[in-house]
């Protein structure tokens, strides 16, 4: 009897310890707003991994915005890169191929080149016509990135891993339309 009690207490302690470890490593949030459509829909529940892993370009980040509000935005530019947002995104002068995007950036949101500092990232919402992001509040310090999206676990029909798109660039030809994208690991 005493052994069973001991086992039960041990199991409870292990469960609590596992929960604490999980809380340190992961973060669960509900998505509000439509700026990450079509990738994330409002009302979905997602699990994020804390920290900023290597090769973060293209990942959806959980960041603290300039006013401290928790935001979900895609990491487009990494420290040291130059980003230009027009009707398409240019990274270090090369056009980024973005299959995940909905719409194109409105002319009012066009910017010059943002040369990112050694500790800055440039973030954009996938829904380019309805997102408040680095086009408006500028690059953010890397330290504001608290986690990256990993898995969607609600609703049941949309459960699955949130993929990180590989960086692809459109080949720099004079007539760029229809050019074959090139792959680059990031």
């Amino acid at each position, binding site marked *: 009897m005493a052994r069973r009690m001991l086992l039960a207490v041990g199991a409870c302690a292990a469960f609590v310890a596992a929960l604490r470890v999980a809380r340190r490593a992961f*973060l*669960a*949030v*509900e*998505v*509000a*707003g*439509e*700026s*990450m*459509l079509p990738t*994330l829909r*409002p009302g979905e*529940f997602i699990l994020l991994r804390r920290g900023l892993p290597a090769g973060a370009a293209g990942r959806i980040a*959980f960041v603290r*915005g*300039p*006013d401290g*509000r*928790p*935001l*979900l*935005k895609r990491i487009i530019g990494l420290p040291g890169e130059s980003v230009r947002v027009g009707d398409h995104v240019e990274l270090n002068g090369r056009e980024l191929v973005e299959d995940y995007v909905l719409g194109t950036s409105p002319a*009012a949101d066009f910017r*010059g080149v943002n040369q990112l500092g050694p500790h800055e990232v440039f973030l954009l*919402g996938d*829904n380019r016509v*309805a*997102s*408040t992001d680095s086009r*408006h*509040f*500028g690059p953010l310090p890397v330290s504001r990135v608290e986690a990256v999206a990993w898995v969607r*676990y*609600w*609703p*049941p029909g949309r459960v699955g891993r949130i993929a990180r798109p590989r960086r692809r660039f459109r080949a720099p030809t004079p007539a760029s339309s229809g050019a074959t994208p090139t792959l680059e690991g990031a």
Partner: protein
Amino acid sequence: MNVARTIERLIRPHSVAYAHCDLPCGVYDPAQARIEAESVKAVQQRYQNAEQMKTAGQTVEDYRARCLVIKEERANLVKHHLWVLWTDYFTPAHLEKYPQLHQLFWSATKEAGLAKKSSDPEQGQKLLDAIAEIDKIFWETKQA
């Protein structure tokens, strides 16, 4: 259906993260106007310190010209965000409780207009102060 709702309730995260946007999601927040106004003030400061801020291959004139273009653009966005709040968020009931609302918005948008002409960061601060007054009322109405 009820089972799904129960499960959803049980697994619902405690935190919300905002895939934030303006018009389609119906989220209103004076922070948008404030962020643009902060840009205006920052550009005014940069304009004043153009000599130090410009890059090596850039002339002071070019740098300042860019500042003016960006400031004009940002000031227009301040007006836009204020008008969205004024016309879409605030209601006659709010106006009854806060009769100074029209005056506040009029003054704030006037300051945004003045920001286009001025390169003085103190003027940018006046714009931020005007937005802060609206922000205070906005959050009071949210808590009501």
